[in-house]
């Protein structure tokens, strides 16, 4: 899960990483809180997306009155589909230099990677490798002092500032490990004119699989659609896309391959649902009903039952249909454990089961065309 900026900064402060002085304004009645901050302020909309600056999510003000007026405007604004529920008001830093510091998981090297750069800001990704300071940290060994010395010496800073950077790096690494982060990033890390290093922005992603030992992070899934959220609460992986064909498959790889097959035959998956390893008929019925809520024009079901029993999946589908008033054209393919019994159940329920993945994709696309495409 990605923490929103003000949350990430709270965690940064807990570990002693300097952040700008600021307050979070959540409603118009809280506008007076702005007065606690310097007259020159930055106003940052708290939305869970990048690139908010270009979309009007970051503004400046040079007086308290101006700040209040601007925050008022920003609250409730829609930025790339997200309603602004709160605005972070921070002292405007007197910037001398913008730097970059990040730590993330390196999947290929199977360890942690610290990335540093003497330039910060949005252009960081286009810096050539020669300008990046990359250091691998072994998970069992942890961050060594020689690595810290080596990294900070590559920044164009004086001795005192290098010491401050070393301190921030150690704290950021500790935070990254203790909080089970998959990303801890400061961009920009600002060197102020009076020589302080301050984390002007904070990005923190916490490993979802570690949340059992980090109960303090409330799950915020605000970038999900209401239907996706509903599915998630039921423990079903459902994602909404643009197309009109609804897809049910089991396993992430098979689901992706099914969507790919649809496109090869000229169709497009609209909403898709991964049944995972379930063959509990009641869960299947529940999943099928959820898919119906997305209003697909055609439904494609592709199950390869290895451990999953095909016949109980088929039962779930049949039961779901008996609950429905209107029946959406459905192409189905089911293979694997207890396949013959499954096909019987499906035929009795009025389906014509397909044999291969290609065939079921083609059938679904033809069904959609017949509907008047």
């Amino acid at each position, binding site marked *: 899960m*990605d923490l929103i900026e003000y949350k990430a900064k709270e965690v940064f402060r807990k570990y002693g990483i300097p952040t700008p002085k600021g307050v979070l304004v959540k409603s118009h009645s809280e506008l007076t809180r702005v007065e606690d901050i310097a007259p020159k302020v930055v106003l940052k909309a708290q939305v869970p997306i*990048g690139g908010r600056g270009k979309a009007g999510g970051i503004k400046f003000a040079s007086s308290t009155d101006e700040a209040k007026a601007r925050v008022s405007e920003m609250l409730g604004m829609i930025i790339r589909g997200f309603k602004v529920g709160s605005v972070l008001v921070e002292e405007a830093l007197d910037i001398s230099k913008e730097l*970059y510091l*990040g*730590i*993330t*998981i*390196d*999947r*290929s090297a*199977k*360890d*942690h*990677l610290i*990335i540093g750069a003497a330039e910060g800001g949005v252009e*960081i*990704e286009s*810096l050539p490798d020669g300008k990046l300071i990359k250091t691998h940290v*072994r*998970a*069992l060994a942890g961050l060594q002092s020689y690595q810290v010395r080596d990294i900070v010496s590559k920044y164009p800073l004086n001795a005192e500032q290098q010491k401050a950077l070393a301190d921030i790096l150690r704290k950021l690494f500790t935070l990254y*490990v203790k909080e*089970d982060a*998959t*990303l801890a*990033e400061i*961009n920009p890390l600002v060197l102020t004119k009076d020589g302080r290093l301050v984390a002007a922005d904070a*990005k923190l*992603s916490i*490993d979802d*699989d*570690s949340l*059992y*030992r980090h109960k303090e992070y409330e799950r915020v899934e605000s970038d999900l659609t209401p239907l996706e959220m509903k599915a998630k609460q039921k423990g079903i992986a459902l994602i909404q*896309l643009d197309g009109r064909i609804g897809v049910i498959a*089991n*396993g*992430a*790889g*098979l689901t*992706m*391959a099914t*969507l*790919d*097959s*649809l*496109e*090869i035959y000229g169709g*497009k*998956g609209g909403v898709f649902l991964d049944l995972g390893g379930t063959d509990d008929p009641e869960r299947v019925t529940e999943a099928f009903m959820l898919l119906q809520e997305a209003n697909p024009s055609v439904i494609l079901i592709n199950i*390869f*039952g*290895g*451990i999953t029993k095909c016949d109980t999946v088929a039962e779930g589908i049949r039961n779901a249909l008996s609950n429905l008033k209107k029946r959406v054209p459905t192409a189905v393919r089911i*293979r*694997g*454990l207890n396949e013959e019994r499954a096909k019987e159940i499906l035929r009795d329920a009025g389906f014509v089961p397909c044999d*291969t*993945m*290609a065939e079921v994709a083609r059938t679904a696309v033809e069904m959609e065309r017949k509907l008047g495409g």
Partner: protein
Amino acid sequence: MSIIVDKGTKVLVHGITGHQGVFHTRAMKEFGTNVVAGMTPGKGGQEVEGVPVFNSVAEAMAARSPNTSIIFVPAPFAKDSVFEAVDNGIKTIVIITERIPVHDMAATVEYARYNGAKIIGPNTPGIVTPGEAKVGIMPSKIFVDGHIGVISRSGTLTYEIVDSITRAGYGQSTCLGLGGDPITGMSFVDALALFDKDKDTDAVVIVGEIGGTAEEEAAEFIKTMHKPVCAYIAGQTAPPGKRMGHAGAIITRGKGTAESKIKALTAAGASVARLPAEIGELVKKVL
């Protein structure tokens, strides 16, 4: 011949008394796997499907000398279980458990590497050598003894691919699931190297998916291989996933998409299928 598991494999099941442990111990035994012991702390002295249960790996080792571990214990305890196996000299460890924190896996993979142990997974369906041994949860029925090596990052999609190979009239030497997590023990390159040396493997099929750069690294290795490779990459039409900040973009540098992977594999001389069902026909062509 085959890779990693064969008739000499003696399996220790970690978490054998759990629901999954019991079910798959039975399935592995039915397949012909030599399951010699199980372990669950506090459950020593019991038997599961005729397999003796011990309280610790050390006890299991003393009594039954297993050489391969399969881990079914829940995610919060998986790291501990793997360390216990490594410390007791087990050199092949298959981690079925899913949702293990990535920091735990980084430490676990590194510890195994220091100690010369091989890790498969986590979040893998395991490994199967038809006619010899299955250390995993893959459906037994789909496999046929033969000479095609299969390496996959996926679960059910692997079964689909194996099915396609079998339908085209070929069997499998060994089928290996790498696991779908960000950090896994074995990678495509490790497995490709083993298959390239295996006398019983004539061609290799790899099943990749979007995310990470493991397929691009596999492509580099394929250039040096003696045997033909066929590939399928899932997620060609998937919407772009969430960005891992600037750091993520710096690491991948435009790699990680299905397009990038297919391009790299094709340039390395691999035959890439558009649909999973085409794999069987591709194998026929390259042999």
